[in-house]
């Protein structure tokens, strides 16, 4: 008899595509002791979620476990009857999904959903379970634990919802919880609260957990052991500290090295040079509510200005104002020293051409019914007036520019490309207009780290060759470190601090910049512990707010 809580041996999982079964997981072993936290890490498509779900003996529609065995506490999950599984799932094995907002039923109060599992499984009565929910909410440091349960999911914030979901997973005191990227959709400052809460409660109840993520720094805080997956195969597995300090495989090393991309600093622009784009005292409103207050900054030729802040800070709204989609109430935008009409409909074709945009979600930014050739060809034809052969040649040239072979890609649809390739097509479409200035709206946040790094390198190279200016909207400070020349920090629609990058990353900071900077997870496994200690462990949320005041 082994002492493993979960024992998966030689797992093979296949997914169905076009009448054939393609392997997703190719013979992976996974063992987990009681109270141990295992980090599963890899790029999207590596099969981490599929493997995580298989630990529950479950697979999604169109997917099947074709080989191997899954034992939970000595029970063979693959051979277990549906009834037997029903008794285990929810009670002894729980699951926390990536998007708590999509996983809660919006029509019921949190407490109703919380108490469902314990009552159904006969663990507790409804009243006991409600009292227990309040205790768990307290432990997870949710504000007003007695009342928050009676709210509906849309009445609490994303970070709180994710903690409520963790509380719900804990409701039956399971032996195993599977966390599927629980903090990926959250801001850095919110992420910390959720990470700290999860880690504490898992420690306290000695729950075993499988923690799925693509963020190395997060896994370093959470896991006792880390397993790296690549395309359905295990690359390596080791103790977290050992893995971080001494990775064995090349792939792991490349993952670790991703965040080291840094551009050499550029000389400061001449003080009297006319900026390419100048945002001057912009105040903008959606309806009657002002969302931007007196925002001003300049972007000089060949330089990258990173605009950072949490979601809701007004970064994307600033971009909408510059492009003319949202005419501001006060202030103006200058291009090369000339004021641009505030509404994009009033701008000339040439003015529109000069300002291009690259979007966060390449999926929605490319028309799914058009081929790559048509997507890139349209601005070439529209602005350059090129037709026929000249247009085809120009498109091929642009594809070369973004490092995709033209022959293979011209006639493909966006759905036939990977996430990174789609983002490259977005870049090519912007380049096709031959602009001076490009707005990059969170262009790397939906991508895996290795792919994101490739995109950043490409953007840097294009800037050097074509003397482009970028406004780089992001919430990821690692990206800022690697690509920015100047940094603008925004909060609640206001610029709180701005300056050249080297200055911005040196103290003294504005307190909000400090909070942002210190919230970015680092690869050091002790980082979270130290940080919490530093901020005062009582309530991290409060501590953050106090620092602000």
């Amino acid at each position, binding site marked *: 008899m082994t002492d493993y809580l979960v024992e998966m041996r030689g797992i093979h999982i296949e997914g*169905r595509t*076009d009448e054939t079964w393609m392997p997703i997981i190719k013979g992976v072993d996974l063992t987990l002791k009681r109270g141990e936290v295992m980090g599963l890490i890899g790029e999207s498509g590596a099969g981490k979620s599929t493997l995580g779900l298989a630990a529950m003996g479950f697979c999604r529609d*169109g997917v099947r476990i074709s080989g191997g065995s899954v034992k939970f506490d000595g029970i063979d999950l693959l*051979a277990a*009857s*549906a*009834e037997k599984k029903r008794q285990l799932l929810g009670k002894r094995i729980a699951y926390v999904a990536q998007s708590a907002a999509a996983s809660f039923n919006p029509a019921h109060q949190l407490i109703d959903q919380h108490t469902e599992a314990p009552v159904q499984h006969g663990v507790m009565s409804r009243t006991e379970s409600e009292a227990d929910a309040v205790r768990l909410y307290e432990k997870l440091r949710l504000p007003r634990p007695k009342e928050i349960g009676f709210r509906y999911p849309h009445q609490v914030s994303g970070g709180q919802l994710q903690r409520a979901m963790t509380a719900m997973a804990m409701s039956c005191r399971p032996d195993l919880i599977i966390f599927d990227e629980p903090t990926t959709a959250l801001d850095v400052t919110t992420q910390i609260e959720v990470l700290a809460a999860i880690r504490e409660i898992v420690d306290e109840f000695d729950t075993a957990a499988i923690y799925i993520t693509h963020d190395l720094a997060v896994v370093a805080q959470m896991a006792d052991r880390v397993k790296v997956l690549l395309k359905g195969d295990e690359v390596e597995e080791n103790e977290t500290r050992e893995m971080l300090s001494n990775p064995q495989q090349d792939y792991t090393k490349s993952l670790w090295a991703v965040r080291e991309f840094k551009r050499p600093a550029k000389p400061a622009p001449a003080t009297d040079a006319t900026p390419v784009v100048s945002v001057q005292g912009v105040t903008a409103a959606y309806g009657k509510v002002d969302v931007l207050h007196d925002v001003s900054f300049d972007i000089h030729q060949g330089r990258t200005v990173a605009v950072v802040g949490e979601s809701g800070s007004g970064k994307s709204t600033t971009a909408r104002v510059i*492009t*003319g*989609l949202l005419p501001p109430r006060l202030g103006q935008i200058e291009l090369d020293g000339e004021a641009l009409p505030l509404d*994009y409909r009033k*701008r000339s*074709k040439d003015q*529109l051409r000069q*300002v291009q*945009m690259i*979007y966060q*979600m390449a999926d*929605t*930014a*490319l*028309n*799914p*019914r*058009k081929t790559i050739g048509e997507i890139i060809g*349209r*601005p070439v034809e*529209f*602005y350059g007036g090129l037709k026929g052969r000249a247009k085809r040649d120009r498109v091929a040239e642009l594809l070369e520019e973004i490092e995709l072979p033209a022959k293979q890609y011209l006639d493909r649809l966006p759905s036939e490309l990977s996430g990174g390739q789609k983002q490259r097509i977005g870049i090519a*479409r912007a380049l096709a*207009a031959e602009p001076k200035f490009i707005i990059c709206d969170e262009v790397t946040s939906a991508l895996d780290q290795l792919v994101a790094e490739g995109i950043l390198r490409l953007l840097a190279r294009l800037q050097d060759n074509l003397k482009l200016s970028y406004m780089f909207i992001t919430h990821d400070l690692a990206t800022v470190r690697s690509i920015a020349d100047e940094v603008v920090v925004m909060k609640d629609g206001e610029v709180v601090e701005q300056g050249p990058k080297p200055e911005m990353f040196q103290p003294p900071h504005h307190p909000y910049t400090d909070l942002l900077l210190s919230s970015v997870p680092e690869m050091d496994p002790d980082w979270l512990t130290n940080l919490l200690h530093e901020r005062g462990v009582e309530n991290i949320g409060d501590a953050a707010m106090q620092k602000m005041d």
Partner: protein
Amino acid sequence: MSAWLWIVALLAGSLAVGWLGRFAAQKATGNKPVYRDMPLAVAFGYALGVALLALAVWYYFQPTVQETGVANAGVMFFRWAVHGFFGFAVAAWLFRLLGRSLGTAASRKLFRQMPLTAAFGILVIIIYAVTAIFAGLLAPHGQAEVFAQANIVPGGNPALGGNPDFPLGTDQIGRDILSRLIYGAQNTVGIAFATTLIAFFLGGSLGFLAATLRGWMDQLLSRAVDVLMAIPSLIFSLLLITVASAWVSGFGLTVAMVLIIAVIDSTRVFRLARAVGMNIVVMDYIEAAKLRGEGLPYLIFKEILPNATAPLLAEFGLRFCFVFLTISALSFLGLGIQPPLADWGTMVKDLSAFINYAGFAPLAASVPLLAAGAIALLTVAVNFVVDWMLQRSSGLKE
């Protein structure tokens, strides 16, 4: 014992057999997961299905003529239905087989992935289209030609009151029903198709326009559509056609009818196009096109329309059937396609009295059912094809 008791006995028996069968299968296969996790309801379903199948086979082989000499109409109609079902299934299968071995590589691939229902639908639509286009050549007689022999029973068997010259019989004033069915395809289907196209052009472009522009234009169009939709469509079209008949007659009235039905049906298309368009205009690629400075026609026809084809196509199939039924209903009421032009709706109306003989003279009663069957068959076929197209374009598997 009354029929209700028989039904209850059948259900109870199926439940018992289902339970026993599942139990036996569990024992026999050593508790295989398939049988172990099978809910009782599923086992009951299997048992009931087998019982109904057996009942159908038994009923099929009942004699068609009772001992008293009266025809057993139920059995005859049932046999026709079974023959029709299997006949079309075999025809569709052969058609698909043909498509798989002939034509270009692309068309062969298309046929290889095609479900049998879609093959059936395409086959039926092709038959209807050919019939409609070559009606003048195919029909043995003219659509308005009146013969001396009225009320001849279909089947062409003189012993049962038929006549080989008129295989589907003649109507109450002696016109050949086969010829009128063939010409009816031309009139009814052609007019319905034209009407649907106009409705889609009108409703689709206005709907996308409203979705793209929003603001007062959207309000104006949407409220106008609300007003039109508030009036029951059949009564509204009756009213408008009656009004129109004060100015025009004959062919002009048919054109007026096409336009009236197109406008009334375009309101439904407008709603759909607007809703679909709203979801598309918020996409980043539309924003990118707007910021590029693209004009409205490019946005609507090049960016939005290609992404809205799947739902519009599905709606087209349904809308075509509805328009078709509306025209038939109007003809039935005497306001649609005017005599002596043949139209299926009118044919059903004119011959509907014969349905009363269904109990003892199934052949005579089938006369109005022929036109009704032609309508039903096309409706089913169009929907099968649309379902298949939807599945292909949305990438849904299984």
